[in-house]
Each structure stands twice: as structure tokens, then as C-alpha cells.
């Protein structure tokens, strides 16, 4: 009961704000560790604080954090709620960081369960809560069953089996030292572990693609005012979502819309035109744009074919030098005034929003950049949620720790602790708990006995 749990508490989807809720005895300290702002350990109860969630010094999201201390909370434990602003990808990332910092992902209905067990909810409600937990768990059981048939599960099952086989080879050495089973040396363990680590690392690398597949690709439209960003958006969405005028600086808020290219979701984000401004409202929009740039999966930097390249463009492009981006030269139906020589090394696509096919080259480029055909063909092989990513990462960490032990030639039964931990993490992904698999493996693979 006194574990620290966390979960995304708002509906998954495109909302301006998502809330990550944490409950448990150490959640204030845990969130404080990843929060840049006031020291949350010292703030009064039931207060809200502005700041950033940071991971290894990198700002992940701009957030509002509500701190509520026990006992006057929903669960009667300390609760911290993090209001995230960066879209679902960022929120998932925040959740991931919490999991790595000592929170456990809440089971379905677990906040309610805590509330109940801690006496926050009337006993009369017990039955309905019980039913709730049962039904939610039933869903998650079904979900787990479905996933078991997926390719991702096959991969995890395969790697977990490899670990199990390695464990059995080690255990037989410990328990039957006088039998003629092959001796597991540190070198053999190292090579087997390295192979498993490679597999799992590949999974993690693909995890990014998995998220893209599930949540879509966040594409931000950026550029000086009036280069036609909102027109591009509207053209793509084929509807008037953004207010389009010819007055520079009209768009002051982020407008999101979803389109599909070759079956992959694209979340389009129009940003306030980036320029120096004294207008307070517009300034907020500009700041917001800069924030969005950092979190987007792709930036489309829009330039007008009809204007010359400005010093401001160069500055902006330099600022986002290391971000995945396409420079889109809009208004190619108009006269060429732009000098493309200065855009050396950038991916440049030309087009317009006047003709129906004017944006096709842009769509094709996006599909090419993210290798859509490959993503789709691999489909379920990707880890797609924060919990899975966090568990695979834990498994990799455990294997790393085992490898360090191997380097130092620590006795193998010590290293077995880390190997077992990796095995358990993968088991958690599949929802299986360790019972007697190891012994079954041991006795089926080795001939032992008096």
C-alpha cells in the first residue's frame, strides 16, 4: 500500500493539457527531483507551482504542479498532479521519467483502491469499487492476451527465454557442480548477455517509431509571419481551422489538426509567427512556439518564394539546426525572389497552396523522412507505451549491471541477481509472474541425478 504510483489521469488523445497523477509517501520528493522550479518539499499543501520537468538537465515540458499533502487528498496519501502541456508524446515521456525515478505505474483502478483502503471512501461503496477493479482488470487481461499474440510479445518472449536459458545454464553449475554440464565462464556469460542486450536495445531504438505509430508524428509549422503557414495547414486539413488573414501576426495560438499520410497520423501544429514583438498576447504565442519546436518530431520551416531570405530566418534556422526539419518554399506560383544558396545542407521542398497538388511533394518528403513503409511493415514490433519502454529500459540497466559484474569477475551467483531482475522486468511486460519456470528449464535441458 505504501508504494508510489503514477498514471496519466486524463483521457489519452489530443487535449491541450494532460494530467499525470502520483500518489504515495515519497511522491513529493520524487517529483521534486525531476522538477525545476520551487523546492516542492517546502511548499504548503494544496498549492500550484510553475516550472519544468527536466531529465538529465534537458527540459522536457513546461508544467504546473499541484502539491497536496496527506491526509486531505483523494487517496489520503501525498498526491502530486503534473499538468503537462506538450501533447501526449511529452506526457508519456514525463510518465517514463517518473517510472525511472521510483514510481510504479498504477494498476487499473489503483487510485480508487488506495482511496478505499485508506478509508477515504465509504465502506458502502466497496462492492461497486470491487466490481470496477474487476472489470477494468478484465479489460487489461484481454489487452494482455491480445498483445500476447502480437509480434512485440513474441520478441519479448524470445529474449526472456534466452535469459531463462542462460539462468538454467548457470543454475546447473551451482546446484550440480560435479556433473558434466558445460562450465559457464565469465566470458560465455558476457557474450550471451551482450546478445540479449543488443536485442533489447534495438527494441528501445524502435520504441520511438512505435510511439510515432501509436500517437502520430508531431509536425510543427514554423516561419516568419505571413509566409503562408496557416494556409498550408488549412490546405492539408482541407477545412478552415485557422483564421487566415493577410495581417501579419494573426495566429496567436497553437492549432492542432490531424491528417493521415500513407496511413500514419500526422499531428499538425501551427505556431504563432515567430518574430520580435511588443504585443503582449502575441509574445505569449511566440514563446509557446519556441517551446513547441523543441518537442516536435519534425519542423517544417516555411519560407516564401516571393520574399528574400532575412537575417531572422538565418538566426531561426541556426537555432533549430539539429532538429529534424524540412525547409518548405511556399508560394512557388509566385516570382522567385529567394536565394537558396544560403540554405546549403537543408532538405528543401518547393510547393504552393494554390493548386490542389501543390503540397504533394511535402507529403511525400515527410513519408520518406520517417520511412513510413518500414514503420508500417514492422507494425507491432514496437514498444509503444511508457510502461513497456520503462520496463525494457530496466531490463537493459540490469543487464548492464550484470555486464559490469562480469568485467570485474564477480562470482556468477551474484551476477545472477541482475540477470533474474532483467528476466522479471520482461515478465512484467507480458504480465506473467515467475513461478517454477526456471526449474522446469533446468530439468528439461540437463540430465542430472544420482
Amino acid at each position: 500500500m505504501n508504494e508510489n504510483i503514477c498514471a496519466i489521469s486524463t483521457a489519452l488523445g489530443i487535449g491541450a493539457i494532460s494530467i499525470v497523477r502520483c500518489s504515495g509517501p515519497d511522491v513529493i520528493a520524487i517529483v521534486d527531483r525531476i522538477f525545476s522550479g520551487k523546492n516542492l518539499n517546502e511548499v504548503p499543501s494544496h498549492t500550484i507551482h510553475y516550472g519544468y520537468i527536466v531529465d538529465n538537465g534537458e527540459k522536457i515540458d513546461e508544467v504546473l504542479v499541484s502539491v497536496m499533502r496527506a491526509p486531505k487528498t483523494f487517496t489520503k496519501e501525498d498526491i502530486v498532479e503534473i499538468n503537462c502541456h506538450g501533447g501526449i508524446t511529452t506526457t508519456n515521456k514525463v510518465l517514463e521519467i517518473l517510472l525511472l525515478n521510483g514510481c510504479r505505474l498504477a494498476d487499473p483502478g489503483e487510485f480508487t483502491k488506495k482511496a478505499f483502503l485508506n478509508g477515504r471512501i465509504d465502506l458502502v461503496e466497496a462492492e461497486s469499487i470491487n466490481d470496477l477493479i474487476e472489470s477494468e482488470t478484465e479489460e487489461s487481461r484481454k489487452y494482455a492476451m491480445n498483445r500476447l499474440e502480437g509480434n512485440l510479445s513474441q520478441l519479448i518472449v524470445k529474449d526472456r527465454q534466452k535469459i531463462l536459458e542462460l539462468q538454467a545454464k548457470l543454475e546447473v553449475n551451482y546446484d550440480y557442480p560435479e556433473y558434466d554440464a558445460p562450465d559457464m565462464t565469465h566470458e560465455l556469460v558476457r557474450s550471451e548477455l551482450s546478445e540479449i542486450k543488443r536485442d533489447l536495445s534495438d527494441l528501445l531504438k524502435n520504441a520511438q517509431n512505435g510511439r510515432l505509430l501509436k500517437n502520430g508524428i508531431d509536425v510543427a509549422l514554423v516561419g516568419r509571419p505571413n509566409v503562408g503557414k496557416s494556409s498550408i495547414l488549412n490546405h492539408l486539413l482541407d477545412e478552415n481551422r485557422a483564421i487566415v488573414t493577410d495581417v501579419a501576426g494573426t495566429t496567436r495560438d497553437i492549432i492542432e489538426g490531424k491528417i493521415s499520410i500513407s496511413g500514419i497520423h500526422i499531428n499538425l501544429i501551427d505556431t504563432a509567427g515567430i518574430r520580435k514583438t511588443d504585443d503582449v498576447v502575441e509574445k505569449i504565442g511566440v514563446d509557446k512556439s519556441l517551446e513547441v519546436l523543441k518537442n516536435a518530431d519534425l519542423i517544417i520551416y516555411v519560407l516564401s518564394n516571393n520574399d528574400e531570405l532575412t537575417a531572422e530566418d538565418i538566426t531561426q534556422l541556426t537555432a533549430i539546426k539539429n532538429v529534424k526539419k524540412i525547409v518548405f518554399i511556399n508560394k512557388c506560383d509566385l516570382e522567385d525572389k529567394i536565394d537558396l544558396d544560403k540554405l546549403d545542407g537543408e532538405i528543401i521542398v518547393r510547393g504552393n497552396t494554390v493548386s490542389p497538388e501543390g503540397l504533394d511533394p511535402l507529403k511525400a518528403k515527410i513519408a520518406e523522412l520517417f520511412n513510413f513503409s518500414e514503420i508500417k511493415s514492422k507494425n507491432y514490433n514496437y514498444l509503444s507505451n511508457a510502461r513497456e519502454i520503462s520496463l525494457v529500459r530496466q531490463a537493459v540497466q540490469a543487464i548492464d549491471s550484470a555486464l559490469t559484474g562480469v568485467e570485474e569477475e564477480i562470482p556468477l551467483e551474484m551476477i545472477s541477481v541482475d540477470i533474474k531482475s532483467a528476466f522479471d522486468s520482461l515478465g512484467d511486460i507480458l504480465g506473467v509472474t515467475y513461478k517454477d519456470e526456471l526449474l522446469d528449464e533446468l530439468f528439461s535441458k540437463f540430465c542430472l541425478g544420482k
Partner: protein
Amino acid sequence: MQYDIIVVGGGHAGCEAANASARQGFKTALITANIKNIADMPCNPSIGGTAKGIVVREIDALGGLMGRVADISHIQIKMLNSGKGPAVKSLRAQGDKVLYPQNMLKALKENETLDIIEDMIEDICVENDTVTGVITKNGKRYDCKCLILTTGTYLKSKILIGSTNKEEGPHGEESCKFLSDKLRSLGFEIQRLKTGTPQRIDPNTVDFSKLKEECGDPTPWTFSFDLDPCYDVNNQRKCYLVYTNAETHRIIRENLTKSAMYGGYAEGIGPRYCPSIEDKIVRFADKEKHQLFLEPESNFYPDLYLQGFSTSMPIDVQEKMVHSLEGLENAKILKYAYAIEYDAINPMQLQPSLETKLIKNLFTAGQINGTSGYEEAAGQGIIAGINAGRKLKDEEPLILHRNEAYIGVLIDDLVTKGTKEPYRLLTSRAEYRLLLRHDNADLRLRKYGYESGLINDEQYQRLKKKEEDIASLENELESTTINYNDFSNNIQQIIGEVSDNTGYNLKYLLKRPEIKINDLKNYLKHTYSDEIYNIVEISIKYEGYIAKTYKEVEKLLKLESKKIPKDIDYSKIKNLASEARQKLALVRPQTIAQATRISGVNPVDISILSIYLKKEYSKDVADE
């Protein structure tokens, strides 16, 4: 005759149970069908082995007899896994099958309140679901307040060789024919188990020049924490390695249907970890040879035990099989291999104290509970003996947790998961094995032996002194810092470049893989025994790994502290999966932790159970 506690059966479980009972001051009777077979070793001559050797140390720590008797009754002893880490090391001795029973009987007789009676028990008296006594084959009655059954393989035992079988126990002893029926009528589930033993060979007919020798360790060892080694390391008996070959395998394959097991003459279930040679050939068909050992059984008679060759083939096939082995071409078989079947109860019908759930004051220990092995039996025996005594004293039973002892792992596995084959301990079964080491059994358990009256003041003071020495050495290492220039060349080389002018802390240095505590002894003010150096070195060198294990233990203990009331009615809990409901009702776990270990009980079922407990028993269930 009226006794406080009666123990039925004089095997390894019975000896420890009777001793533990008598040491607590109870008037105790050990009733055995044949006094000559007290502490008999009908199978392998070895005591100890991986995990099992640690059990022997645990029994000694608790005040039992097996370790101290083995120390004065063996013909060879060695430390297994000596080249591996500290958590998998354990002692294995070749016991002398004549000396060991003699010395055990002597040790038992030191108990003034213990009577050893020769008789065959065939009935149990029960009134109001409470045991009140036993009745012998000839109708004589003995009364008791607590009864401990340690009947070994003798319940309806049947010896199988090929298609022939005899209703008898090991060595042609009389089997116990009616007791298991009585148990069944009392509501116990009876299962049929099987084990086997290989041939005994005449050493004068073996060509030892063709066999590889296996010797005892040159360093002296004892199981017991209280004894010094009292044997000559240079005068230990040797064991020999033997291998099967293609010819052996051909003979076995061609005669497979003649074997009791494969011919369908046996009904019992044999252990996977101790398969017959025909099992090995069938299941591991592509293995070209299997390893066997020839081991001496005693200094008082010649027989060599052919470990690894147990079989239920008829004797003419056994002759061919043995003669196909290199070095044994002309070997004379003194005793043929046989399989033995016997009745056992379902251990899930036991409480963790080893008292049965059905009949009050009735305890069972050893093979009757489905285990195999002398050490497993003895480990249960001492716990049953202690707990029968505690029951009579109206005290809480001694229940060792999985993080405290292999004996705890063993009993928890039995009562929680049951067993379908004779159960053997393995280090792999212990999830906290880094804590359950050979070196620290007394530190873990001696306090319980002392509380129970099995460990005397002198032994306890020795433990206290050991604990003080450990703390003192740890402190000294932690508080000693030595300058680079003051170290020997050897250590300087290991340290390499001087990175730190403030000196090197010894505890920190000891964490380096290349540095051993022996390298640092000279820099300490005090000297300690090798045992102390060893324990402290382990705890410092592997601190990180041990800490990880403790973290896991913490999770366990939290769940162990959540008790499940004895009167819980699982049929009243809505939403439990039906398999979980059945298993919970059968096992009746005492804590949530135990419930999580039952196969077929899933995390969801555990949360439903927790909520039910909270709701129905919110006043008396300690949640945190």
C-alpha cells in the same frame, strides 16, 4: 504409557524431532520398527551437497544433531563449488553408513527424557479432531499430547525390480501397512511417490586403473559450529568417476519394457532431479555418455555405491548394464538396484508449523511430506520437534521465512505449492540465496535454537562473541585509512596511479575485485579468526548485491506482515477466479505473501482478497 510427544519413525526426521522435543524437556518417545535402523542411510552415503550442506549447518545452528554426528562419522568431506562465490558453497561428506547410525543413537541417548522403543505403529488415536495416542501392530497403546509422524518410505512401501515386486521397505524391512489408510480415513490426500537406489559393487572386482579418482579436500572442515575437525585429511576415502557408453545405452534401450517404470509395473511418480538411468537414456537420447560415481559406503564393509545408475530393470539386465561400464567389466554386484514406491500425504494439508490442518497436535516431517533426502527430512524433523514443544507450551510456532533459511524455503514450498514428485532442495529454489549462506547459518538461526532451549548458554555466548568480532573488524576496516606509500608494492600496483593524497580507506579498497582481505590484515591493529575475516570480506565485497537482495526481502516482509484470518471463508469472496478460490481454500495461506506464491493465484485475485480482508476484518487486520 503416557508421553508428551511421540515420534513415529527413527530416520533422519525422526531423530531430529525426538531430540528437539526431549531437549525442550518433554517426555518423549521415539518409536521405530528396528532400532538398528536408527538414522539409516538406505541410499546415497553422502550427507550435505549443494543447498543440502547449508541445511545441515542450519540444523546445527538450531541445535540439531545431523551436523555434529556427521562430523564424527564421515570417510571423506569436501567443499563443493569452492571455485565459485560464497553463496553457493556447501559441504558434502561421505558418511560412514555404520558409524553414522551408531553415533546418532549415542547422541539421542544423551537425552534423559527420551525413550527409544522398538515397535511397529499401525494406528493413530484421535478424539475431537485431536491426536491422543498411537496403537502398535499388536494392539498396545501409547498416549501422547503431540504426535510427530516421520515414517519415511515405509508407508505401504513396495520394492520394484523389473516385473517383480515385494511389499517391504529398504533392506527387506517390514513395511507399515495400515497407517496410510488411517490417514486417508481422517481426510488426508494420499499420493504415491517413487524413488530408487543403484547397485552396490564389490571393490575387489573393479579395475580402478581405468577410473579417475575424486579426493576429499586437503583443508579440514566441520558442519558443526561447535566442533573442531577431528579427522585426518590425508586419510580420507576416495570416490571414482565412471562413464556410461554406447553399449550401455543399447542394452538399456533394448530392454526398456522390462523395467518396472517403463513396463508399467509402477504407479508412483519419481523425481526429475534423480531420474533412473533408463529415464536419462530416454529423455536425453542424444547424450553420448552419462557420468556415474563409485563411492565407498563405510570403512566396516566393502560395498561401493554406483551413484547415477539407479534403475528398476530386472537383475539379468542389470548385470549386463554394469558389465558394459569401463572398469566394471568383471564387477560383482553385491546388491541390485531397485525402485521403491511409498505413500505420502499432500503437504498442502499442513500448516507452516508442520502441524496438520485436519488433526490438532499431529505433526508430520520428512518423506511422508513428499520430500527426498536425509537433510530435507532432518530439517523438517527439527522444526516439527520444536513446534510440537511450542504447541504444548502454548507458544507461537517457529516459522522460518524464505529469507532466513533453506529450511524455511523448503517448508514454505511444501505447504504452499505441494509437490507431485519427491522434493529436493536446490539453491535455485531460494530467491534470497545470497543471504542463505554456509558461512552465516549460525548468525541467522542460532537465536531461535537458543529461545527453544536447544542451544545452551555457552554456545550462545560463542555466537555473541562472533557477532562482536564481526562488528569490530567491520569498524576497523571502515575507520582505517592508509597512505599510498605505506602500502606494500603489491597493493600499490593494484591501486595504480596515485589519485588521492589523503590515503586509502581499507573498506573501500576491499571492494575492489583484485584486493582480498588477506592483503589488508597487516594494516589492522587487531587480528581475528579466519572465519571472521571470511564473513566480513563477503559482506563488504558483495555489499551491493546483498543490498539488492535485502530490497527484495523488504517487499516480502511487508506482505508477510499481512495476516489472513484463520476463519476466512473463500466462498464468500466475490469475483475471485475459481481456480484461485479452490487453491486458496486448500492451502489456507496464513499471510498475503504466502497467497502470492500459490500457483494459479494471480495478482488480481490478491487485490480482490486484500479488499475483502480490509472490508470484513478492518478492525483486526494490520495493513501496514
